[in-house]
């Protein structure tokens, strides 16, 4: 289990779903950063005034602040993940092989078939995977725009530890 493989498998998700990811990230990133900012969770200023005057109601102090900061940290992490997904999605949509090149270099080759957007191949452990190669972000490398005949066999390269990260080898497409 190679850590770089795991990272590429995770990064490959926004790269493979670039079109949807760009929409999701663009519409949510503002809200995520707003929620993770201090003071927007209600009652922050009221708590500050109460602490200054020494009139914090018993029992609310620890619970309120710990819960609030956990939520804030969670949303801050999510916000940066979303920002990364937005960047990866845009790169992937514009044709940059963010993860494809790595998968191509380090993937294990096998043969698969293409049916529309769906690619079916059998991994070394015998499991048959049916995965999507999106129209907007096709999992095809090195020639992203290569035409794939539907139903024809193709060479697929996948990461052995995470076969969900795969590319179709466009250099070995039969003419």
């Amino acid at each position: 289990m190679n850590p770089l493989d795991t990272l590429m498998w995770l990064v490959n998700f926004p790269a493979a779903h670039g079109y949807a990811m760009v929409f999701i990230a663009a519409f949510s990133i503002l809200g995520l950063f707003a929620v993770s900012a201090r003071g927007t969770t209600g009652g922050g200023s009221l708590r500050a005034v109460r602490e200054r005057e020494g009139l914090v109601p018993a029992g609310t102090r620890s619970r309120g602040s710990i819960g609030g900061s956990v939520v804030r940290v969670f949303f801050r992490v999510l916000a940066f993940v979303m920002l990364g997904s937005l960047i990866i999605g845009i790169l992937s949509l514009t044709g940059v092989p963010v993860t494809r090149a790595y998968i191509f270099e380090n993937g294990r080759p096998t043969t698969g078939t293409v049916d529309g957007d769906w690619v079916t191949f059998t991994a070394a452990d015998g499991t048959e995977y049916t995965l999507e190669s999106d129209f907007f972000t096709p999992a095809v490398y090195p020639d992203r725009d290569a035409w794939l005949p539907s139903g024809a066999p193709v060479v697929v390269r996948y990461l052995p530890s995470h076969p969900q990260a795969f590319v179709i080898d466009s250099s070995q497409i039969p003419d």
Partner: protein
Amino acid sequence: MLRIILTVVWLLLSAWLVVWVGEGLFGVNQRESILPFASDDGLGGPIVIGVAWGLLLTFGGSMSGLARRKKVRGPAQIGVGTVVEMSRTGVTVNDVPQYDLFIRVSPSVGDDFIGQLRMLLDAGDVGALQVGQPVPVRYNVDDPDTVELADLSDPSVREAMLQWRIDRGLIDPSQVRARTTGTQVPASVVEVRPTGRRREGQSELALKVLVAPEGAEPWEADTTVFVYPQAVSRLQVGAPIWAFYRREDPHTVAVTIEKEPAR
């Protein structure tokens, strides 16, 4: 209620997206999805649901601050609070700025607490409200986060304020009968002298007043009154004030600065 519905919807959408990501990362046959609305091309569902999720997060979250509840929940008591802090929220409506007022309330039973009041205040109102100033408030001890300003022209509010002063000893027990059931007549301050006693941020003055009912011979009476420091100047020698007395005991007098509407 609306916020609860929006939260539930947002959580459902979050769950949908988590399952979608999970299927994308771990799914073996990703053509089959357990999710509703997952179309075969794999685009429509995630986009619509993700955008709805993001919009709910953005606007549901930022509007909860604006739509802060202003009403006191449950049965409200009337009391006196002092302004602890005033800060602008940054929002203006028709060029009238919105303020957060933090008010320290001393309930008739229990400990002091600080509540919040968010309201629009134009320049005149802001001048009239200052830190440390007492204001009549409506509050509920079980819901100390929110307080409302009480309307002093409401007779029940005046009654409660008077009761609050009596409970706190701000009206001398010997004057209570005159103050609550006596007749109100014009009077003037003849002598004023501080007694040195302070209570609830008010200081006590010993007064000699000339009680002058219309069409009757005036007489002098001694009394005491607790006033806020800001009001001391209105009790200088010669100042016109109002006095309450009972016919059977015209030398027990309670005074007020402003005339009280007839009960």
